């Protein structure tokens, strides 16, 4: 049976994998293993939709599939009518700062706000519009004016920190909507996205005296979670990746301030005070376990995030806040390569370029080249595999037996972005281990 895969999905998947990045859509086509982990996160999402909260730290080595996993979770959340905000941390974006880096993270989260209808980000405007539409329908049903319904809903928000100003901004948007004042609408959206940098500007544009600055980021997210529920969505899921950037921070005080912020978020979600808000953080094992500069260096976090002592030696426990993504097994990897081959052939089993035997030989070849790394951190292996398929596809007369032996595979170096070029000259340094 051939289930045809749409070209759009196929291309998205194949091209991202070849470039070594995670595909934004179509993850289900290449999802392998990890069933319990996925179930855990799905139950979290259900809990968020049900007025609860969630906090998970997803831990995995470089290239073990963290980002893929997080993207998959995002896709599931959107299906379940949650609003998803995601962002990657970097030296300029962190959870706590005094120089604008936290605001920068918030702005990025807002830019990437996605819903089922707008899965590629930029959904903030749409959410506010949905809020107004929902209010209108309710108003009609109850026989009240839209104004009154909106005001009543917004009153809900005012009990949170910064709630009054948030409500004022939404009200300004509604006014703009009614009057057809595009400027007011776009200013309101700008304020929500954290793009006002001075209070004076905000006051002139919208009449509110506060802006989203570094100190207000988490409070703003809580407000947003409540707001999206008022707009008819099930809740807000915030997905933060590359938390290893906190681990790499050189300034001890700043790093600890960020961990303090994570503790705050953790406490709120475990105690259930943040309704409809879920956090999923992705990081490396060092980020969690290093007692000198990782999360474990902060004693309160260490006790809350500690492993279940009974769950050792093969026993699992997925109820704690930490979800460890174990590396793929060779068997899993085999299935993965099969699926990739299947996607490459657009779902047509007759067009498979490589028989199962070929996949097996390819894995053998990689194992010889880079040892275990080929399935533990499969990023580069997958790229090589797709390159192999590409050559097979475009060169009709060639047989896979000839090519498999000559494929170049290198181990994954963690994918750090080099800001300074010409690293090729220094081969002596390429494999430097202290």
């Amino acid at each position, binding site marked *: 049976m051939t289930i045809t895969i749409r070209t759009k999905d196929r291309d998205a998947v194949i091209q991202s994998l070849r470039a070594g990045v995670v595909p934004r859509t179509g993850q289900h086509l290449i999802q392998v293993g990890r069933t319990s982990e996925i179930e855990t996160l799905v139950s979290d999402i259900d809990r968020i939709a049900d007025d609860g909260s969630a906090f998970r730290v997803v831990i995995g080595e470089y290239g073990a599939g963290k980002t893929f996993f997080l993207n998959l979770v995002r896709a599931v959340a959107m299906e379940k009518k949650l609003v998803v905000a995601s962002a990657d941390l970097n030296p300029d974006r962190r959870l706590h700062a005094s*120089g604008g*880096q936290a605001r920068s993270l918030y702005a990025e989260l807002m830019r990437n706000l996605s819903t089922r209808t707008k899965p590629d980000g930029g959904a903030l405007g749409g959410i506010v519009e949905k809020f107004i539409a929902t209010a209108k329908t309710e108003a009609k049903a109850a026989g009240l004016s839209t104004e009154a319904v909106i005001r009543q809903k917004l009153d809900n928000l005012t009990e949170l920190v910064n709630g009054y100003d948030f409500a004022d901004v939404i009200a300004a948007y509604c006014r703009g909507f009614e009057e057809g004042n595009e400027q007011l609408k776009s200013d309101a959206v700008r304020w929500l996205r954290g793009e006002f940098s001075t209070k004076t500007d905000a006051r002139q544009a919208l009449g509110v005296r506060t802006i989203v600055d570094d100190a207000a980021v988490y409070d703003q997210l809580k407000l947003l979670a409540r707001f999206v529920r008022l707009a008819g969505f099930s809740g807000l899921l915030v997905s933060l990746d590359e938390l290893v950037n906190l681990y*790499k921070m*050189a300034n001890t005080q700043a790093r600890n301030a960020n961990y303090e912020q994570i503790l705050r978020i953790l406490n709120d979600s475990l105690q259930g005070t943040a309704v409809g808000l879920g956090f999923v953080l992705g990081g490396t094992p060092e980020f969690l376990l290093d007692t000198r500069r990782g999360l474990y260096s902060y004693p309160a976090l260490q006790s809350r995030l500690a492993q279940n002592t009974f769950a050792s030696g093969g026993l699992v426990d997925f109820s704690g806040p930490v979800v460890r993504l174990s590396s793929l097994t060779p068997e899993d990897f085999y299935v993965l390569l099969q699926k990739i081959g299947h996607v490459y052939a657009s779902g047509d089993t007759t067009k498979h370029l490589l028989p199962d035997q070929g996949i097996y030989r390819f894995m053998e070849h990689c194992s010889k080249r880079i040892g275990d790394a080929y399935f533990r951190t499969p990023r580069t292996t997958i790229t090589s595999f797709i390159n192999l398929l590409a050559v097979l596809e475009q060169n009709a007369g060639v047989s896979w037996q000839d090519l498999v032996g000559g494929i170049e595979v290198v181990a994954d170096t963690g994918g*750090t972005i080099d*800001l300074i070029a010409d*690293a090729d000259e220094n081969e*002596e340094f390429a494999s*430097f281990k*202290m």
Partner: protein
Amino acid sequence: MSESSASFYRLDERIQRFIWAEGWESLRDAQEAAIPLILDADRDVIVAAATATGKTEAAFLPALTHMLQLKESGLIVYISPLKALINDQFDRFDRLCGQLDIPVWPWHGDVSASIKNRFLSKRSGILLITPESLEAMLCNRGTSVSAIFDRSTFFVVDELHAFIGSERGKQLQSLMHRIERAVGRKVPRIGLSATLGDMNLAAEFLRTGEGASVAIVESRSSGSELKILVKGYEEPLVIRSGDDDEEREPTTPALIATHLFKSLRGSNNLVFPNSRREVERFTHLLNNLCLQQQLPNEFWPHHGSLSKEIRTETEAALKQQSLPATAICTNTLELGIDIGSVKSVAQIGSPPSVARLRQRLGRSGRRKGEPAIFRSYCIEDALGGQASLATELRLETIKTTAMISLLLEGWFEPPATNGAHLSTLVQQMLSVIAQYGGATISRLYTLLCAEKAPFSGVSKEDFIVLVRHLGQNELLMQDSSGVLLHGRVGEKLVNHYTFYAAFVIDEEFRVVASGKTLGTIPISQMLTVGQRILFAGKTWFVEEIDETQKTIYVIRTSGGVPPLFSGSTGRVHTHVRQRMRSLLESNDVPVFLDEVVRRFLAEARQGYTDRNLGHTFFIDQGKVVYILTWLGDAANEAIACLLIQRGFVAIPAGPGVEVQKGKHSTEDVLNALIDAAAVDDPPPLDMLLAEVKNLYREKWDWALPDELLRIAYASLYLDLEEALKWTKQIVAVNPVN
């Protein structure tokens, strides 16, 4: 303004108006020449001239003109070694730049955060900053560096001559390089310098690897007047019975203090006694004199062992303008803290080097019409009894006289540009990791040690050895993706406020005998176990040297001629020693000496002839042989190392090398020397420096692996070439023994 000044008309109109308003009649030479070179911002320029000859204007008038012509506002980064200089410049620029609507931003430790924040949001105008503050900016705001310096149009480095050849200069080169890398383009550099002998050294410093492309503007205008007086004091002999362990108080300091009191009271001055002990002694004497005459105290001490409170008191006393203040200090007041100009400078004992003397003198007579005034005090023991060679030949006085005469000829030690400065490399590596939040070893090497980078002399193998060693000492660590981060120790040090300075000031060794600390002594030469040392008027034998604690353990020894080695703050150049020798051999008497010093000079010359030192190169002194090389400390150390390698205890001391004979004879020593000369290839540093201590000279030297430490040390402090040349020459002249 004369019509022939082409440069004047190329300046912006508003600047021209400013010049008219200030009443300047013409542009100075340096300014005429520099303006056309700087206007287009397409090359590096050095402006070399004496103090107060308008160097700053020579750089800024065209630089500001260029900035005014830009569409988007630019940024001039002005780097100065001292906060006080920055404060002065700020006052000067404020008026001119106010009229041009260009903001001026001082940035150093004493500037408030609000001013700094305003600069960070504006990022244009003139930024006045010290290297340490710049380092802090790169470390703490690493991610914003490319944004902050995006509009840089020029780097202006003031007091360039003070930076060349020092760790701070290396750090400065590295900072400018890192900023250029962050913004992705070359930023033209302007250096303001006092005149140096070889300006090419300065050019190569300003732009590593491209020194030839730097334009040099030199102005040979006459310097200001210099008044010199050298006074001599003789410490009389005291006959003591037996083995007197009590340290007797010398009597000359009190006399010197009286003269200082008379001459320096009522104005601002600096007094340099060459060691902490002496600072304490003279401060005490001068304070007593003030007390006796019921006058308010004007004399303040300053050195590295004093508590911060006392040092701050001294600095405050010097900064305030209403009351006169004189500081008695070690070199902490050369670099560490800064004050305006002083009326005169006094030196007790010989200066550490001619360059340092010049630097110290540069503090006085900065205003037009004011001469620089210099008083030098030479102390010698009276002849007789078992006088050491130093006393017989009045070596301290001869050294002072030689240095002053060289100064008057305009000579000074050429800056040591061969220094490896691996200590600064360690600091920069830690700083780069802080700036970028981690870096791979490949990126570190490319940024800091590639061709045209500041540390380009370091090979890849050496770099790997260094990184491994730093990893072992927990300064660095590697995360699972191969990125280097700060280790436990590294993180602590980087987060401490002292991290930003690349240098240490004024470290002296503690002298401990039988568990009791006798005092401290500055030592800038190598040390080796078994050598003799003169301290507190007695002879000691060095038993143990602890480099990390900077302590030497000594035991009393007696008999024999007193040793020449008594510690010192400076290293002497061969040229100075050669001048000393020619002074001893000639009959001229320099005019700036007083009668006592003239007598010393005559006695020294007599001693020189008596011992026939014009024709011998060694002196047999019983248990020791003194090899008289008349070479500088670097060459003498090399000779001492060669002898140590052959089993002797040898140490550079004064104008030669003191070798303990032990069981050997003088002949054996000389044969060993000849042996060393006969070798064609110089021995490797590892072997040469194996038994030698006091190699930790720079701030981060303790973190280096042994082999790199020796390379770093030898690059600055060992001159094997000169040593071998001398030895071969001697052997040629004295073929048999």
